[in-house]
C-alpha cells in the first residue's frame, strides 16, 4: 500500500500523468453515472428505439451548444400542446357531431426554419373516426389549407402522427422548396426566415358525443441536446454515455485477461527452460502469425456479433500474445537473482517460486504495459463496430461512428456525428497513454537513469 502511495507521488511529478489521471477520473465518473442512471436494460431499449421513443427528436440535429458559436440562431424543437398553447372552441353541428376548432398562435424568431413539421392527434373515440383539416397562416398572411384526413387511433399511446413536411399538397405546392422553407421563409428572399406570428387552425369534426381530441404541433429544431441526434432521431448522448462503460470494461477486461495469461505462461517457460521454453516460444510464433482482426471478423460474421463473444474470442486468442517475448526476457533475468536461489535452497516448490516470488517481482514492470494496452483494445472494439460487426444491441462509440460513416455523415455535413465518438475515443486513449508513459518512466529502471 505504501508502494502505491509512493508511486502516486512520483507520478504527480509528470504533468502529462496528471492530465491523464484527470481525464481518466472524468471517464470513470461518467461510466459510473451512466450505469446508474441508464441501466443496461433501459439503454438497450432506448437504443433500439422503435415506436415513438424518439419521435419528438429531430433527425440529424446538431448539438444545442452550437448556438453559442454561430451568429445565426438555430431553432430547438418546440412542442405546442393544444391544452396549453392553443385556444379550443367547440360548436355543435348536427345531432351527435361537433366541430372543434383548435387555434395555435405562436411567434417564430429563429434564423432557420424548423427541420421538420408534424402534427400529433390524440383522439378519444369508440368507432367513428374524427375528420380533421389544417389551415396555416404565415406571418405575411399567406394561407394554406391541407391535411384533410380521418384520424385513426393507431399508436399505443393513442397518438396519431401526421407529417406536415410530407403532406402531398404542400409538397407539390412548394415545388423546389421544402415545406418548412415554404411556410417559414420570406417570399422575396427564400433563404431568410420571416420572423413573426404564425397561426395554425385545426378543424376537427367529432361524430360521437363523448369523443374528444387533443393535438400537438411539433416544430422540429435543427439542434438538440448535448450531442445532437442521429438518423433515427436517437439522442447521440445515449450512445456516447453508454459507450463509456462499454469501452472501459472491454478495454480493461481484454488487457487484464491477456496480461494475466501471457505473464503466467512466460514465467512457466522461462523458469522451466528447455523444452518448456521452446514450446512457449513456438506457440508465441504461431500466435504472431494468426491474424487477430481477421479472426474476430470471422467470428463476428459466422458466429455472433455480441460483445461477449468477441471478448471471449479475444481472451482465448490472447492466452499467448506477442508480449510473452518481453515478459520472458525479464523473467530470464530475474531467474538468476539471489533471492530466487535462496528460495530454492530452502526447498520451495516450483509453483511457489513462480507465483510467490518471480511474478510479483515483475509486476511493477508490467503495469505500464497494461495501462498502455487498454486503449488498443478500446480501438479494436471500435474498429469492429466501424466494420459493421459491432454488438447489435449495445450503444458504443464505434457503433455511433459506424452509423455516421454508413450514412455518409461527412458528405452531408453532419460532422458532429463523427467528431463526437471520435473525440471520446481519442480522449480515453490519451488518458491511458499519458498515464502509461509516465508509469513507464517510473517503473522501467533503464529509463530511470535518464
Amino acid at each position, binding site marked *: 500500500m505504501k508502494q502505491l502511495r509512493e508511486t502516486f507521488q512520483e507520478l504527480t511529478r509528470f504533468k502529462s500523468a496528471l492530465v491523464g489521471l484527470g481525464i481518466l477520473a472524468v471517464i470513470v465518473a461518467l461510466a459510473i453515472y451512466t450505469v446508474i442512471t441508464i441501466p443496461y436494460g433501459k439503454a438497450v431499449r432506448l437504443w433500439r428505439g422503435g415506436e415513438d421513443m424518439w419521435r419528438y427528436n429531430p433527425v440529424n440535429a446538431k448539438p444545442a451548444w452550437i448556438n453559442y458559436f454561430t451568429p445565426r440562431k438555430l431553432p430547438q424543437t418546440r412542442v405546442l400542446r393544444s391544452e396549453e398553447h392553443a385556444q379550443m372552441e367547440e360548436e355543435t353541428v348536427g345531432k351527435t357531431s361537433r366541430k372543434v376548432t383548435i387555434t395555435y398562435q405562436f411567434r417564430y424568431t429563429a434564423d432557420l426554419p424548423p427541420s421538420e413539421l408534424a402534427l400529433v392527434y390524440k383522439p378519444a373515440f369508440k368507432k367513428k373516426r374524427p375528420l380533421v383539416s389544417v389551415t396555416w397562416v404565415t406571418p405575411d398572411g399567406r394561407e394554406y389549407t391541407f391535411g384533410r384526413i380521418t384520424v385513426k387511433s393507431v399508436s399505443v399511446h393513442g397518438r396519431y402522427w401526421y407529417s406536415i413536411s410530407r403532406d402531398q399538397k404542400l409538397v407539390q405546392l412548394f415545388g423546389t422548396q421544402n415545406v418548412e422553407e415554404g411556410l417559414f421563409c420570406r417570399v422575396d428572399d427564400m433563404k431568410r426566415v420571416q420572423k413573426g406570428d404564425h397561426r395554425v387552425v385545426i378543424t376537427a369534426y367529432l361524430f360521437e358525443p363523448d369523443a374528444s381530441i387533443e393535438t400537438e404541433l411539433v416544430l422540429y429544431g435543427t439542434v438538440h441536446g448535448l450531442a445532437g441526434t442521429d438518423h433515427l432521431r436517437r439522442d447521440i448522448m445515449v450512445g456516447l454515455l453508454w459507450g463509456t462503460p462499454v469501452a472501459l470494461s472491454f478495454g480493461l477486461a481484454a488487457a487484464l485477461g491477456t496480461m494475466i495469461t501471457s505473464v503466467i505462461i512466460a514465467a512457466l517457460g522461462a523458469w522451466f527452460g528447455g523444452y518448456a521454453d521452446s514450446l512457449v516460444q513456438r506457440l508465441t510464433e504461431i500466435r504472431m502469425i494468426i491474424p487477430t482482426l481477421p*479472426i474476430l471478423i470471422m467470428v463476428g460474421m459466422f458466429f455472433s456479433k455480441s460483445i461477449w463473444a468477441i471478448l471471449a474470442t479475444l481472451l482465448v486468442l490472447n492466452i499467448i500474445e506477442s508480449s510473452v*517475448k518481453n515478459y520472458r526476457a525479464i523473467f530470464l533475468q530475474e531467474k538468476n537473482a539471489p533471492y530466487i536461489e535462496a528460495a530454492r535452497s530452502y526447498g520451495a516448490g516450483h509453483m511457489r517460486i513462480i507465483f510467490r516470488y518471480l511474478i510479483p517481482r515483475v509486476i511493477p514492470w508490467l503495469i505500464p504495459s497494461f495501462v498502455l494496452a487498454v486503449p488498443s483494445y478500446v480501438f479494436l472494439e471500435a474498429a469492429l463496430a466501424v466494420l459493421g460487426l459491432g454488438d447489435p444491441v449495445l450503444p458504443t462509440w464505434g457503433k455511433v*461512428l459506424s452509423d455516421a460513416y454508413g450514412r455518409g455523415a461527412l458528405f452531408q455535413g453532419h460532422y458532429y456525428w463523427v467528431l463526437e465518438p*471520435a473525440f471520446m475515443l481519442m480522449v480515453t486513449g*490519451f488518458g*491511458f497513454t499519458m498515464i502509461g508513459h509516465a508509469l513507464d518512466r517510473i517503473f522501467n529502471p533503464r529509463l530511470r537513469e535518464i
Partner: protein
Amino acid sequence: MIRLARYTFMRAIAIFFALVIGIFLTIVVANMGGYVDKIKKAQVEESISMSVFTNPAYKNLTTEEKRELIDKLVALELERLGLDKPFIRLDRNFLRSRAFKYLIDALTLNLGFAEHIHSTSGSKRVWIIIQERLPYSVLLFTSASLIVFFTSIYVALVLSRRYGSIWDRLSVSLAPLSTAPPWFYGVILILIFAASLRLLPFGGFVSIPPPKNPFAYALSVILHMILPLSAWFISGIFASVYSWRTFFLIYSSEDYVEMARAKGVPGRELERRYILRPTLPPIITSFALMLISAWMGAIITESVFKWPGLGSLYMEAINSFDTPVIVGLTMIYAYLLGITVFVLDFIYALVDPRIKVGGGSAI
C-alpha cells in the same frame, strides 16, 4: 555466412510450421458451428439442381423424378467432398477429413470461388480477386511504413542528442497521439481536407475517369495517396519517435559508448557505430510488431479511403457476406504475417551477431 544460411533455413521451417498450424486453426474457427459446411452444401445443391433442370437429357422426367435424381446426385457429391462425414476425423482417417483437405487447399492457395464478388477481369476465383488487390495494399503500406521508419529514426537520433530540450519534451508529450489508429486520423483528415476544404480527394486510387497521360495518372495516384499516407504517418510517427528516442537514450548511456567517446571516436561515427548499430535489433523488433498491428489497422484504413486493396475487399466481403472471400483473406493475412516475421527475423540476424544457430525467433 554459413551460420546465416543455417539460421535462415531453421527460421523458414519454424515459420512454415507455425503457418500451417495457424492456418489450420483459422480453418477450424471459420467452420465454427458448421457454417462453412452449410454454405458449401447449399452451393452444391444449387449447382446440381441448376444442372439437372437445364440438362436436355432429363427433360422428359417428371418433377418427382427430377427431385429424386437431384437428391441422389447431391448425396454423391457430398460424399465425394466428404461433407457427410465429420469435419475433423480424429482417427486414422484424419488425413481424409475435410479439415485437412481445406488445409492443403489453403496452403496451395486454392481458395475456392467467391459468392458475390468478382475481380475486374471477371474471375470469381478468390485467389485471383486477392491477387488483383494485393499490389495496391503493398504499395500504400510499404511506402507508409518506410516513410515512418526512416523519418522516426532520423528524428529520434536528433532528439536523443538534445535530451531535455523543448523538442525532446514535446516529442514525449505528443507520444500518446499514436494511440489512435490510422483509420481514426483518416476520418479526421477526410473531414478537414476533403469535405471542408475540398483540397484533396475523398478516396479511391485515382480520379475517375483516370487520366490517359501516364504522367497525369501518376500524379493523380500520388494525390490520392497523400491522405492515407498522412493518416498512417500521423498515427505511427509519435510513438515511433518516442520509442526509438528512448532506445537511443538508453543505449547511449551504455559503457561501450563512453569508452568509444574516451577513445576519441568522432560524433557522427559514434552515433552510427555505437548507438545506432547496437540498437538496431530492438528497433527491428519493435518495428516488426508495429508492422503487424498496422496490417490489421490497414483493413479499416483502406475502407475509410476506399483504397482498392485487401482492406476494402474485406469491407466488401463483410457487407455482401461473401464467406469464401473472408476465409481466403484471413489465410492471406496469415501468410503476410508469416512473411513479415520471416523477413524481419532475417534482417535481425544480419544486424546482430549474437544470434546463435537453432535459436528462436529474434522478433
